[in-house]
């Protein structure tokens, strides 16, 4: 199947003009075939044109036929309505009900009475493809130092040529001062847009052209229109309207006078694409109504990512200024992506890194639309060798690190397929080191050891105390029998050593002993031996008992 772009059609036409001279069937001797047959479609006006060099006014008429071609199948030849028995060298076949997106083949021949010329070579085209964009209809309105441009799309309301592309039109405008010879300035505008910052009370002229950039169609210019700008309004309009969209969406503007109140309006950007009046679609931002400050947070109103327009108006209570120049605001493009921040925490054998992305907790969840990946770079504190890793999660662990070595981390957020990422900033640098488990274990062991030792010591002390208590309150007076045996051989003097008291009492005892020596030597020894072993506090008591004993014995 032959390709048939507009240029290809032209090539075909040239070829057809040459070739058609040669084939000539019998019985069609005298009539020439029309030459250079072309189709001209502007908006929804279909014109067929051809050349006819031979004698005009010679009762020669022309008739054209067409054939639909749908997925390679050809229909019968039909009369091209408006192009039957035409006397001139062009005909308007707009009234033929053609599907503009369907290819058709058109042919034409000259006729004179019964005589017909051979067919010209077929012209193959789809109306939409060869259609040209006509001039748009433009209306101007002067407002202060601005001109408002109202554009009706090319074609009539009933024309179906651009019906499916009505919102795809882009309008190019050239404007110049009537008095100046300088070439005009070009703008791309929507219908309803304003050309701002013109001189007051000056005549400006302009022309507008509609384009379908993707279809590579550029229309013809509208007729030149001129208009006078008006005198400047008493109150100037707010200037330098800008959006600051770091954390919240904040509109800022300048104004020369104090004590003014302002109000801000926004428009959903897509209304500018619809070819109808959108002037009533502007909405006042409730937080930015009658405000004195020259900035306003409009984050509350803008909940869907998209393209918006904003404008500001000043008022001093009695007079209201004109609206400022409209500021286009694209939430995706204007929202700044700050670098993330990181926190690094040590673990027993790894470091865990937590990345937080700025603005994510805010209204604009960046990663929702753009899957962010994180480029993590870490290095040993003293070394220059950087390790790079790409992660998708915001919380991850880095293992295979040497314990007790300081590692530093930095991270940056990249978009999934972002390649030229040199300009993207890194986060803060965070350093940390792994504190391995071993020291902890030894500490536990040491603590346990100390604890156990402590327990033993306490147990021992308790035991001693118990013993002491037992001795104080439940003394046992009888020494073990083997001790008796041992002391029987010892001289008495050895037992009386510790204190003066002892000596004294022992002396007393001695005296007794001397008295009682003959009666019971063993018993005496016994008493002194026992006293020697114990504290002085017990002494007198024992002394008493012993003396009692002795007296009993004496008796």
């Amino acid at each position, binding site marked *: 199947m032959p*390709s*048939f*772009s507009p*240029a*290809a059609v032209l090539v075909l036409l040239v070829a057809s003009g040459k070739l058609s001279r040669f084939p000539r069937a019998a019985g069609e001797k005298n009539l020439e075939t029309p030459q250079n047959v072309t189709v001209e479609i502007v908006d929804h006006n279909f014109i067929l044109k051809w050349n006819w060099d031979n004698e005009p006014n010679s009762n020669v008429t022309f008739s054209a036929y067409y054939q639909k071609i749908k*997925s390679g199948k050809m229909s019968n030849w039909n009369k091209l309505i408006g192009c039957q028995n035409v006397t001139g060298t062009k005909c308007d076949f707009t009234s033929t009900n053609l*599907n*503009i*997106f*369907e*290819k058709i083949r058109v042919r034409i021949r000259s006729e004179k009475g019964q005589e017909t010329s051979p067919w010209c070579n077929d012209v193959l085209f*789809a109306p*939409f*493809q060869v259609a040209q964009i006509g001039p748009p209809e433009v209306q101007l309105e002067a407002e202060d130092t601005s001109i408002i441009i109202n554009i009706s799309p090319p074609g009539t309301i009933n024309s*179906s040529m651009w*019906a*499916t*592309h*009505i*919102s*795809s039109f882009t309008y190019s405008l050239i404007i110049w001062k009537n008095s100046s010879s300088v070439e005009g300035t070009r703008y791309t505008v929507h219908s309803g847009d304003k050309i701002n910052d013109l001189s007051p009370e000056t005549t400006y002229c302009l022309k507008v052209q509609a384009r379908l*950039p*993707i279809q590579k169609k550029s229309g013809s210019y509208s007729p030149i229109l001129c208009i006078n700008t008006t005198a400047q309004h008493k109150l100037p309009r707010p200037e330098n309207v800008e959006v600051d969209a*770091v*954390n919240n969406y904040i509109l800022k503007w300048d104004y020369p006078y104090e004590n003014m109140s302002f109000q801000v309006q926004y428009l*959903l*950007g*897509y209304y500018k*694409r*619809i070819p109808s009046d959108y002037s009533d679609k502007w909405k006042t931002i409730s937080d930015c109504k009658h405000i004195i400050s020259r900035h306003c947070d409009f984050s509350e109103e803008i909940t*869907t*990512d*998209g*393209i918006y327009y904003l404008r500001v108006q000043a008022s001093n209570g009695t007079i209201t200024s004109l609206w400022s120049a409209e500021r286009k605001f*694209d939430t*995706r*493009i*204007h*929202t*700044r*992506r*700050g*670098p993330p*921040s990181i*926190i690094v925490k040590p673990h027993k054998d790894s470091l865990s890194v937590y990345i*937080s992305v*700025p603005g994510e907790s805010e209204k604009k969840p960046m990663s*929702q*639309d*753009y*899957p962010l990946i994180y480029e993590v770079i870490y290095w040993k504190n003293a070394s220059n060798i950087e390790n790079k890793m790409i992660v998708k999660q915001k919380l991850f662990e880095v293992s295979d690190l040497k314990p007790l070595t300081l590692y530093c981390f930095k991270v940056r957020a990249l*978009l*999934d*397929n*972002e*390649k030229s990422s040199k*300009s993207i*900033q890194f*986060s*803060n640098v965070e350093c940390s080191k792994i504190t391995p488990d071993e020291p902890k274990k030894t500490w536990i062991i040491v603590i346990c050891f100390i604890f156990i030792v402590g327990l033993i010591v306490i147990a021992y002390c308790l035991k001693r105390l118990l013993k002491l208590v037992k001795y104080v309150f439940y003394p046992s007076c009888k020494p073990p029998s083997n001790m008796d045996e041992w002391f029987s051989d010892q001289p008495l003097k050895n037992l009386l050593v510790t204190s003066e008291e002892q000596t004294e009492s022992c002396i007393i005892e001695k005296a007794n002993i001397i008295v009682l020596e003959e009666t019971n030597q063993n018993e005496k020894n016994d008493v002194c031996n026992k006293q020697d072993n114990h504290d002085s506090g017990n002494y007198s008591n024992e002394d008493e008992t012993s003396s009692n004993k002795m007296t009993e014995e004496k008796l």
Partner: protein
Amino acid sequence: MPNIQKCLKFSYFLFLLFTSASSLDCNLLYSYLRNVNWKAMILLSKMNKEFPRQCLSIRMDFEFSQELLPPEQSLKDIKIVIYEMSQHIFNIFSQNYPPHTWEVENIQKIQIGLHQQTEYLKKCLEEDEKEKEELEKEVEDEISYSGLAILQVNNLELQRYFKTIGSYLKEKKYSHCAWEVIRLEMRRCFYILQKLISQLK
């Protein structure tokens, strides 16, 4: 802990001071488009859970064939098809107001997404075009020309398809049922868009 947070916040603001506004990156179209379309598909499904029975009688086959989307296309061609389709869907929703039973907000959201999507695609296609023009200065343009011609044939089919849809709505006087039929059809379109977008990856 609050101290750390304060510190972080402060450093974050410091960093922000030095960050520049990110501009539209045509390499990022894929993930952006994928999300926008996905959202639109969900919104469209949300509007009415079931297809109303009384509308079954006017259902119509708009003859969307895979021929509209031949398998071997260059990235640029795919972008053009995505652009065209988005533009057409936008056009359908904006020209004639959909029924009141549908939530206006949902339609608006779809429109906002489609609008932004087409703006981006247009910009990126224009950029591609510039690059291509530069390339063509060096290379003979005949080969690329024939490629363009084939593409235009396909786009014609696509346009015919959308024109049929437009005519159908008009013919049915934008009735509720007609819109329900179109809603189903648009869901199919978003699905096809999604498939096309996945080819951009």
